[in-house]
């Protein structure tokens, strides 16, 4: 990338510029969800809020974990822990593509120099029972974002439709900053007194987690946790909608969904440990999808999910 005054100098500056940009476009800037997830889509601000009729506009960074992608910090592009930037707007605005391109300019992509393309890519999440149509966005032949119009989530048709943008932050930032190995990427401003690279912060943790994910995580404990999370999710959802203590109608969609996320992450860990066979794999994915679907069913029974007191009649 050519170095113009407008070019960001660090990973965090790119994140900050995205935050500022999407805030200026009216998004609520949320914080990362405080649980382990495989992608920004799992944040309830996307999965659950894309359901029902209530308007929504949110943007956030989501640390994401994919245990099988761990490479002990040695692969220039692969990490078991990385960051996604996620934007979800419902209903999808008519100028979402322009808004998106604006965000690229905001982080220093000069449209007069680069080749930006929207290449067909349909998105599907078997674990969330979700799919949508859209594109992967290419910048000079590199995929920099995923752009999706959600059609179905948790088995529910999306009405209205949400527009979802997902930026793979490390890859995008490496390109903008002209870095070849993720660990060499400046995390904060390289001109400051204590400059830190991505590697300063994450090289060691990538090693530690890669070892744990692949070799030492206790699979018996994980298998038990999976069962427990699944059971807790179902139990939470089967509770009566009316809370006997407060007398209020409280459908516990979010606590149940936390258990679903937990089950999903544990499944990913078990997968990395290599204890799940090909046939079992499908069965586990089906179990998580079943939880996600039930959580979606519960969410549309809440006010945020569009439920109205009249609906009870």
């Amino acid at each position, binding site marked *: 990338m*050519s170095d113009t005054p407008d070019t960001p100098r660090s990973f965090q500056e790119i994140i900050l510029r995205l935050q500022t940009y999407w805030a200026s476009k009216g998004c609520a800037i949320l914080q990362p969800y405080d649980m382990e997830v495989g992608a920004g889509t799992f944040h309830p601000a996307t999965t659950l809020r894309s359901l029902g009729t209530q308007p929504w506009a949110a943007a956030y960074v989501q640390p994401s974990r994919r245990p099988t992608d761990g490479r002990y910090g040695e692969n220039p*592009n692969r990490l078991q822990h990385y960051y996604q930037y996620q934007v979800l707007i419902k209903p999808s605005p008519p100028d979402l593509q322009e808004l998106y391109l604006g965000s690229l300019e905001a982080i220093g992509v000069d449209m*007069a120099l680069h080749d930006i393309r929207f290449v067909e890519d349909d998105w599907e999440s078997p674990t969330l029972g979700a799919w949508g*149509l859209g594109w992967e966005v290419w910048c000079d032949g590199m995929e920099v974002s995923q752009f999706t119009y959600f059609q179905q989530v948790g088995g529910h048709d999306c009405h209205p439709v949400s527009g979802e943008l997902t930026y793979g932050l490390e890859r995008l930032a490496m390109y903008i900053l002209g870095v070849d190995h993720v660990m060499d990427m400046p995390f904060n401003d390289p001109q400051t007194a204590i400059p830190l690279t991505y590697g300063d912060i994450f090289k060691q943790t990538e090693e530690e987690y890669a070892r744990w994910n692949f070799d030492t995580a206790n699979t018996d404990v994980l298998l038990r946790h999976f069962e427990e999370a699944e059971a807790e999710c179902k139990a939470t959802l089967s509770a009566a909608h009316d809370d006997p203590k407060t007398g209020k109608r409280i459908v516990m969609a979010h606590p149940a969904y936390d258990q679903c996320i937990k089950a999903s992450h544990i499944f990913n860990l078990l997968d990395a440990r290599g204890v799940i066979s090909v046939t079992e794999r499908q069965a586990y994915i089906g179990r998580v999808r079943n939880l996600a679907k039930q959580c979606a069913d519960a969410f549309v029974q809440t006010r945020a999910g569009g439920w109205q007191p009249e609906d009870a009649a």
Partner: protein
Amino acid sequence: MPDLLIELFSEEIPARMQKRAGEDLQKLVTNGLVEAGLTYASAAAFSTPRRLTLTVEGLLAQSPTTREERKGPKADAPEKAIEGFLRGAGLTRDQVQERETPKGNVLFAVIEKPGRPAAEIIAEVLEATVRHFPWPKSMRWGSSALKWVRPLQSILCILSDEAGHAVVPVDIDGITSGDTTRGHRFMAPAQMSVTSFADYEAKLARAHVVLDPGARAETIWNDATNMAFASGLEVVEDAGLLAEVAGLVEWPVVLMGKIGDDFLDLPPEVLQTSMKEHQKFFSVRNPKTGRIERFITVANCETADNGATILAGNEKVLSARLADAKFFWENDLRVAKDDMSVWTQALENVTFHNKLGSQADRIERIAALARELAPVVGADPDIAEEAARLAKADLSSEMVYEFPELQGLMGRYYITAAGKDDAIAAGAQEHYSPLGPSDDVPTAPVSVAVALADKLDTLTGFWAIDEKPTGSKDPFALRRAALGVIRLVLENEISHTLFSSLNSGVMSHLDQKIEIEGQIRAEKRANAIRILDLHPSMERTLARMLKTSGEKKAVEHLESIKFIWDEEAGEEVLVDAVSEEPLFPPAETLEEDDLLAFFHDRLKVYLRDQGIRHDIIDACIAMPNNDDLTLLVKRAKALSETLKTDDGENLIQGFKRANNILSQAEEADGVEYSYGADPKFAQDPAETALFTALDQAEAQITPAMAAQDFTTAMSAMAALRTPIDAFFDAVQINTDNQTVRRNRLNLLSRIRTLCLSVADLTKLDG
């Protein structure tokens, strides 16, 4: 007469859908217009990533007025009848005419439909088209209920003539039509209004949009080949990629980039596939060495630095991709050189189909079949078997996991690297062939054996579990497999009764089933093998049962058979275990075997393209050994050639006449005239001449048929035309003299027998 211009402007349409969408738009709109009475002179459709455009020229300004006259009941008919008539016509009593007819006064309704202005019709047709557009996949967006391939942003719809242009008002879920569009997303995003198609196309060109996908493809190809040529290189042709890339850009800008030196030694196919699949790059080859040395990428815009940034970015992405490919290649080579059985063992855990076992099970069957077929195709059985065992080993390699389309080819590289026989390596690559009607057919004997075994196993397997193609559904590509077998057999001139191999294919499925289910213990299995050894016809019966009733029934059937000693016959006979009734293999005909019928159907399609009529094929299918496809086709081709001659065509008429007279007489008399005619009862010279001619023909046809020389046999048969015609002209078959009549009928029988020994001429049309 006005011209119509429609543009449906949207977010990026997937490249693979654009061409079809343009055609659908043209078809749906023009059909709708014509149905409503609006005819036109010409129409054309165009597509870019962001727009579908239709221009219709010489359209009627309004639909013609139509007039329909309906006859009703008599004027004095009951009130109910008249009311019904009026309701049907939508008229009142004073709006219908009363006319005098010979039957009295009758009511007539004249329904006149005035013509409608073109704009009104267009609006309706366009709305219906948009709402019911046949996208392979469509979506909703925002709060709208409308579906389109991606969000539809605007509609341009104008009618223009010498006087000017007018917007055709259309409103589809809040998207209202206008006379404006936009140019290139980045280079000319401003809105602009247009007055006609010519104006539209010209303004788009100025706004960096090439409307015609054909023109974009041409520009890309010309620029790419020129650029490569200037460096002494050539672009690897790829029509599919060219069409796709032309659908990804509105303003193609061709750039040529370098491939890192580290990667130039990868197999060219790997470079090509990686660049094409991941980056949609064309490969640029050095014609002297055949190596891929550069790539061509097509950008969607001109940039201030003439594409330098774009190219640098693309080169960087490619390096990361090729680093992966190189990693796979080097790892795979290590395994191949060390011990490939790691790969074949891994296939035990890969399910081929849940009812047909793992890939490893399948390879076992294919290896056995390839060994059996080897002598037929002139291959060494040991080599054919080893080739079959290794042919699919590369499915376990990292490269094929990443690029499934390289299966077979990688196998060839890896087997060669392992130091195996070239024929084995070639077998891995070629055993998937032919993949389509235009794909080359392998000719190397080992490759042919493995290719046949692979396809026959697939066919018998899916037949055995009753997963046959139906209608347009053929998920396991069985039609392709059958056509592959046909082409392998015919183009290599393999004369072999296919069914013997089909049956052993079926048997290994059955065998495997028995083992898998553990339903038959060792002695039962031994019994089954004994039954099948002693009574090969049982194998046919079981094969049929497998096909018609499924494995379970066939296995049950096999279990239900036992041997008992038959006192009278003095030998063991097969009986049903429960009823102890003797079992007689049914005298089924091959036509009942629907797998063979399936082959024959495919063969008809294949030969139809070569100009051989279906009835000719039927006439040959009805003959013995019809599972020897080479023989069958030789016969069909000879018959087809014979029928093209004057003698041949007339002979068929003579044969049919003889056959008809004979059949009628046989039916009437209740006997079969096949006792041989005697020349001494011949009364007419023409009759005597026919005897002589038949003797001569027989003397030629019998040895020719034995030698499968159909051309000689059929020309000898065609030579009978003159004597047969002369015979019919000269004599009356049904004379009063019964001896003479019988003799003549027996003579006709000789004609029939002789002709039918060549092909079943009764199946011929006309």
